[in-house]
């Protein structure tokens, strides 16, 4: 157990033992390599298999909306999770006073797909040490620098440090390479319309409509998703080109001004579909056009959800 893990676990234990929280959301040891599980500790006796490392790939803010507003929730937040929680507070999904955020400056999440693409899917063991990862298969052993395996969203992360956590454990870390986000948006935006459509088609055509992207996203908490509407029907039900493309476009558009680019959607996808190239474009537009970055505080409405009487657009007033 790393020093960080021990400190986090001790803090979780304290919050539970002192009844400051009803539940502490963190991670527990995986059953199969690469996938530690989100865990919901209600008693410090349950903390034996507590784990926290760079393979903890889920955005825990996802689970905030599952609890009644009265539930006192303690949780681990990395930079992106902190911003997700902030935005969920903006959207009144849980009151700030009933959340205790234990912040962790984040060194980035390793993308399990990058690991399996390099080592094959049959992985027997993974050893993590600072900046390094050793992956064992039945025949080989691979060593990687951590930066090689970062998920694309983590590699371009501009906010790895928690910004409004109640307590931060660990030293602040440097932002990664935010210029990458700009480069990707520029690359995609710089292509011809035909090439962009081909890219989008190539990604969306693998979709199996399992909606893991939706379910992994903290911002997708609608009681009824547009794809599940029977009447009116917004999209074809099949894994047809129209059905899959509509899903991917509208899912992304619903995130306008609400996406923190945590990349949880991509990491959940069983078909390796890239999705953040669309949401990052929307994030960049929000920043350039409205100087808005989602989740930087827990008060500011995203531009497309905000309403003011002196709105510049005439139809509003």
């Amino acid at each position, binding site marked *: 157990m790393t020093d960080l893990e021990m400190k986090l676990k001790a803090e979780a234990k304290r919050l539970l033992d002192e009844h400051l929280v009803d539940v502490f959301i963190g991670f527990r040891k*995986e*059953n*199969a*390599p*690469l*996938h*530690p*599980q*989100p*865990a*919901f500790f209600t008693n410090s006796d349950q903390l034996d298999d507590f784990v926290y490392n760079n393979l903890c*790939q*889920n955005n825990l803010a*996802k689970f905030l909306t599952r609890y009644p507003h009265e539930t006192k929730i303690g949780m681990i937040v990395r930079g992106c999770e902190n911003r997700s929680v902030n935005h969920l507070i903006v959207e009144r999904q849980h009151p700030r006073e009933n959340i205790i955020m234990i912040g962790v400056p984040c060194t980035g999440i390793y993308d399990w*797909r990058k690991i*399996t*693409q390099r080592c*094959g*899917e*049959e*992985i*027997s063991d993974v050893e993590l040490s600072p900046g390094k990862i050793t992956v064992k298969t*039945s025949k080989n052993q691979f060593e990687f620098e951590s930066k090689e395996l970062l998920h694309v969203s983590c590699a371009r992360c501009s906010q790895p440090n928690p910004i409004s956590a109640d307590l931060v454990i660990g030293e602040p870390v440097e932002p990664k390479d935010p210029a990458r986000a700009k480069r990707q948006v520029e690359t995609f935006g710089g292509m011809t319309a035909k090439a962009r459509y081909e890219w989008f088609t190539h990604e969306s055509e*693998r979709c*199996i*409509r*399992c*909606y*893991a992207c*939706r*379910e*992994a996203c903290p911002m997708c908490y609608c009681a009824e998703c547009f794809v*599940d509407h029977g009447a009116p029907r917004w999209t*074809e*039900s*099949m*894994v*047809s080109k129209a*059905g899959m493309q509509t899903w991917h476009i509208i899912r992304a558009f619903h995130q306008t001004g609400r996406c923190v680019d945590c990349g949880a959607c991509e*990491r*959940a996808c*069983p*078909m*390796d579909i890239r999705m953040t190239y669309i949401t990052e474009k929307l994030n960049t537009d929000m920043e350039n056009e409205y100087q808005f970055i989602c989740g930087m505080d827990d008060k500011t409405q995203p531009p497309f959800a905000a309403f003011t009487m002196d709105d510049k657009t005439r139809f509003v007033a």
Partner: protein
Amino acid sequence: MNYILSRNDIPKVLEMWSKTHQVFAPQKYSNFSAFLPYEGKAEQLCLEYPHNTRYPPKALFLPQSEELLSYTKDGQASEPALDAKPKLIFGIHACDTRAMTLLDTVFDAKDYQDPFWKARRESTAIITLGCDEPCSTCFCTTVEGGPFNRQGADIIMTDIGESFHLEALTPKGENLCKDLPYASAAEDRKVSNVQEKATSDMPKAFDTEGLKTALDANFDSSYWEEVQRSCLGCGVCTFLCPTCFCFDIADEAARSKRYRNWDTCMFSVYSREASGHNPRPSRKERTRQRLMHKYSYWVDQIGKIGCTGCGRCVRYCPVGLDIRAMLREAGKLPVEVIHA
């Protein structure tokens, strides 16, 4: 009879089979593998992967979206032609082949035969590639199968190094092998070694003895509440599952067509009724349904567990939920003894 297919001859033989069959083989697709029509690109083949294709080959018989009929405004309806052209699936693992035989009990049952399923099944030959290196996520031997299980296969293929050993199990299989050289006694011996070793290497993932009783006795247990907490409620486990067969029928008025789409008990809309009432209102009931269906209801219906231990749900669950661990725990739940 037993035959030999040397590794170097695979492209040639697939070419030969392609003359009479549409051949499907595991091939590179994006960053992973899937059963795709073989188009002469031997370098795309993924026969060496120890793990299964990501997308389940059940889709070759039960496509994720399938047209059932088309209609016109003046009330004419027509069904699409049945797919009866000869097909061959090459290199499918035993768990996935066995899954087809389980699905036959649904789509080709005594009282109901699905014409689309049946036509594809009858026109398809299956060459199972046994697993000499079962994966850490595999548990076929726990659920009445095995890495070299023969159920559903026309030929069972074993990797014996330089070449593959093919044992034809049906007349369909014999017919496919007729141009291949016979295997020698020494090669036959290698096969039994490989098969026995692979099978004996696999540990039991959980105890199936008494599992159904424990599950049935604990339908209302708080265990289901506990086990579903990290579940996202997505469809990864069921859509990638080789034995999940649930579907929904949708009329796509804009196309004037009726479709059958895969559906999953993990979605809340799956069980939501027209009134708005949902008998499985939360992930608790839906998670329970997934496990109970495979490990209790299938047993009630056909006397077999409805899971072949392929491990896809374990491998690709976005939150690392492991059905083996879930069942291990479920098996330990108390079973109340009722005295007469």
